[in-house]
């Protein structure tokens, strides 16, 4: 029962969070000033996602194998590797680090 309540509330809430922008603003041109803000949303959120996906475990900041994966990714990016290679290199580096530690 608790599971169904959880799924219903989180499911509906997420559908609403994801849907509100496309429903309300769909197809409209936004004013230039807002465009300036929205165009910076991608780099800003990406950087935040990188930080949380690399260093956060719950509410703790940790240094673990993911950091090794990211270091390898940086090298691959500097060497102008294709994105697929960057992803694979990061995963392999993290897996190997985790296996060794």
């Amino acid at each position, binding site marked *: 029962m608790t599971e169904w309540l959880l799924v219903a509330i989180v499911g509906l809430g997420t559908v609403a969070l994801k849907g509100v922008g496309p429903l309300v603003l769909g197809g409209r041109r936004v004013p230039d000033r807002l465009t300036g803000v929205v165009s910076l949303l991608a780099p800003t959120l990406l950087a935040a996602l990188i930080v949380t996906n690399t260093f956060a475990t719950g*509410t703790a900041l940790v240094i673990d194998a993911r950091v090794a994966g990211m270091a390898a990714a940086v090298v691959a990016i500097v060497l102008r590797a294709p994105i697929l290679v960057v992803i694979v290199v990061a995963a392999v580096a993290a897996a190997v680090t985790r296996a060794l530690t």
Partner: protein
Amino acid sequence: MKEKRRTLPAGYAEGVRRAAPLAVAVFAFGVAFGLLARAAGFSVVVTLVFSATTFAGSAQFAAVSVLSSGGSLVAAVVAALLLNARYAPIGASVAPWLTGPWWRRLLIGQITVDESWVISNEGGGRFDPRKLVGAGLLLYAAWLVGTAIGVAGGGFLGKPEDLGLDAAFPALFLALLVGQVHDRRALVAALLGGAIALVLVPLTPAGVPIIAASLGCLIGLRRPAPPATPEDDPAAEDGLP
């Protein structure tokens, strides 16, 4: 490498192609989620409904682990919705590029997740809705099929972490961020966003750092940006939180 393909089916195909490596990781985490939910006492049906409606890995993991570690329903719901709150600004950012009837926009919003959003982002506030749909549908299928296999007891894959797949997501985000930072403003916004998130992780519940960091894009108010859209709608909408 071809960067600009503009014909109709190619846009969708390009989204699928770019999402393919991520779909492998999403699938593996789907399996892991199915296993976790099953271990926490969730039924097969409720677990599948969860993945089908919410389609957000971090929120689903958080909700199930809060509940299974003895937390209250309210705590689980709050944790999950905080983690998903970023989808309000993310949805608003793609909205101008979505056309068609309301139900179609609503559906596309549902498959707008971190990875599909990033893949369809063409910089300067532009998004390709076809890439978004192609990538989103593939990732959605990977998440659902992964969940189904996990909940059916598919422990054969091993933990996604052992395969290093948890490093695949930030690596993708970094590779795409590098392509986004064309000027000083974008660089400042990215550094600001990363710094806000880093500072807030230990201080706030998970999810809050990302939402707070998104406010970093407000530095875009300081100077007029090169317009991504030719015409200007003077009936100003307040689309951002």
